[in-house]
């Protein structure tokens, strides 16, 4: 497989995960937005998607149901819930971890 096609595959995979993450956020945060209105760099808290610690509980539950990802400690949560892209990274990292075991 050429380098280019590997990169393309990675990009495609990332787009798929992004779409799933956007859908998950719209449902669990009751966002009044279309998926493509959520920029991947948007932060989840504060002025971005307006999430607060209560909503974070919902997103953590949704991550577990949707992707089988458990975020146990506060540090992990803070890191993962920075932005939409951070969530996508988390899901992709988990796929790699599963694939390499």
């Amino acid at each position, binding site marked *: 497989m050429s380098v280019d096609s590997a990169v393309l595959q990675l990009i495609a995979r990332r787009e798929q995960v992004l779409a799933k993450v956007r859908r998950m956020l719209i449902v669990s945060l009751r966002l009044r937005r279309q998926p493509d209105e959520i920029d991947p760099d948007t932060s989840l808290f504060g002025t971005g*998607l307006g999430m607060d*610690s209560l909503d974070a509980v919902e997103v953590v*539950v949704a991550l577990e149901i949707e992707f089988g990802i458990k975020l146990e400690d506060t540090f992990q949560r803070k890191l993962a819930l920075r932005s939409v892209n951070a969530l996508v990274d988390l899901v992709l990292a988990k796929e790699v971890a599963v694939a390499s075991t």
Partner: protein
Amino acid sequence: MAAARADIAIVGAGAACAVGTGCGALWAAVAEGRDGLRPVVRFSVAEFSARVAGLWPGWDGRTQPAQRPGDPPAPLALSTLELALIAAREAWAGAQLDGNVARERVAVLLGTCFGESFVGFSELTEGVAAGLGARGPCLTLSTACSSSTAAIGLGRDLLERGFADIVIAGGADVLTREVFAGFHALGALSRDKCTPLGETSGTTLGEGAGFVVLERGERAAARRAVSWGSVLGYGLSGDAFHDTAPDPSGGGIARAIRGALADAAAVPDDVDYVSAHGTGTESNDLAESLALRAALGPRADAIPVSALKGFLGHAQGAAGVLEAILSLLCARRGVVAPTLRCANPRPGVVADPVAGDGPRPHRTRRLLKVSAAFGGANAALVLGEPVRPRPMRPARTVEVAGTSALGPFGLGVDLLERAVASGTPQSGAVPSFDLSHVLRSAPPRDLDPSGRYLSAAAGLALADAGLAVRGALRERTGLFTGNARMPARSAFDCRASIEQRGITGIAAVPFAHMTLNAPAGTCAKLLSLRGPLLALSTGRASGLAALVVACEHLSRREDADHLLAGGLDELPVHEPGTASEGACLAVVSAAAVPSGTRVSVAGWGLGGPAATEEVLARALEGVPEVDGVYAALPQARERLLGTRGDPAHLPLGLVDVDACLGPAEATASAYAFVLAVAALRRGRARRLLIVSAGDSLCCAAVLAAPGA
């Protein structure tokens, strides 16, 4: 010299909670250093990381027959009313009132988070009144975990203003598996017994009921009743910060404490002891310590401050009254109760959390009881020996600065007027609308319908008043809502999440939004309303009751200038029926507002559900003839017959809002108020009477046109 305000004495108390039944059991627990926290057996907690709670031992072993032969008997659910009546009867008996008071003059104020099985709120209070034979006004306060603290404060007002001769005030909540799961999902539960003000974070839930009997001091002395101390002052405030967490700066709690001190004509040095809210969560305990320092100054670190949830667990809506009773019991014996399991205080908390496991000798002349709650609703009480005469301030004039209405007819008071004029009853849902068109501060996410309706109504009413709530005005502006049922959509979503994901998958957001005061918390946060925050229920008449209580609050207090008040209803999910939903608010103000034509509130009254005549007489005291009546009252014409509000003798007659609009349980009476304001603004009348009644109370207000 200004006359002094009446002293209000506590002449009886009753309790049933984790440590047992009766005030004797409360004291014994402290004397023996014994807590009431145990592994839960009433329902399964196997799925949770927390296993202990403070359940009432009086229910131990109560079971119902097995559903199938061979199964072990299932635990029987404890009724909140049953628990409430045990405490209320003890309080009533202790006050030795029998034969000494007219039943029509006995009011019942009950604070509760979850009512009777999440359903009956005003019905629970009415049940307590019926059990005691009380026939005065009933008020149900639901500001989550500060509910019973607020109930005692408002009860004081009813006595002081002569709306009752005896007040039974307190609260009740039972612990259910759903509530346990909700707090578990929020990450608020401690794995083992909680250690308030100590190092581990998390609370331990409990349940219970507690009531005090209040009476004017003069009356109590005349019949030689034993006083436990006086209710000297209370304060309410809103955080406008978060749905479940306190404002970490403690600013909201500090405002409630300052309000209570000012109301009591007390200074920090008058307070000898603080009974803290002290849930045991890191966020609460640190915010509360900051608040105590902000409001009491160096006194906060010079006096004992203990948290009693280590004994009782967090008894939800009953927590405030139970902790107040226990603190008074200790004060009578010249001791303060310790904070259990607090050998290693959390860094940052007040200097003396009374670590230890036994009572400590201490003279408490006056104590401060602090409560904080979901939705940022804080309450504080000052109890004990009167400090100095509290001057009777002249009543402030209360005006209606702005109004709003939304319902099946759409958004706007003009649409409400048109719907009433059309004579065709309209019922059903509020047509869909975009909150961001009404409120610039609307979040990018959907609120539940109750939160959306209330926030829209609040935004429209403030705009109508020309009031921009910014800067210092945020702390002078509050919100009193009257609603009858839990927010339907959030309660539905919460149940659905349990059905789909199991009990540990209970969804945190709808759980936190299904309390009666959640819409008020959401709305206050969106609009930065940091003044007094209150959610009350009287079933029908809730909206007008909230308005009357708001007028009373503004006219006699100095800690708020503007209150949004009115009613809110949300239709049940997937059960259309014949009811209607909506929200209707008025901005009542005791300070200048920019809006042009101001209608003044010339009088108000409230009393028992059947006391129409007395309530109208009170509201019309010193008021010349009225031109017409706006009523949300079953059999309005019959009930008003022969009173000063008899429509047959009034030029404009009667506007029967229920008949015109179809039933809106809590909101109809607020529609009546807002319709009357609109008529007066248009110069159609000089003075109008608004009256409503349900099974809890009857209430009325008189509005006067500018210059009338």
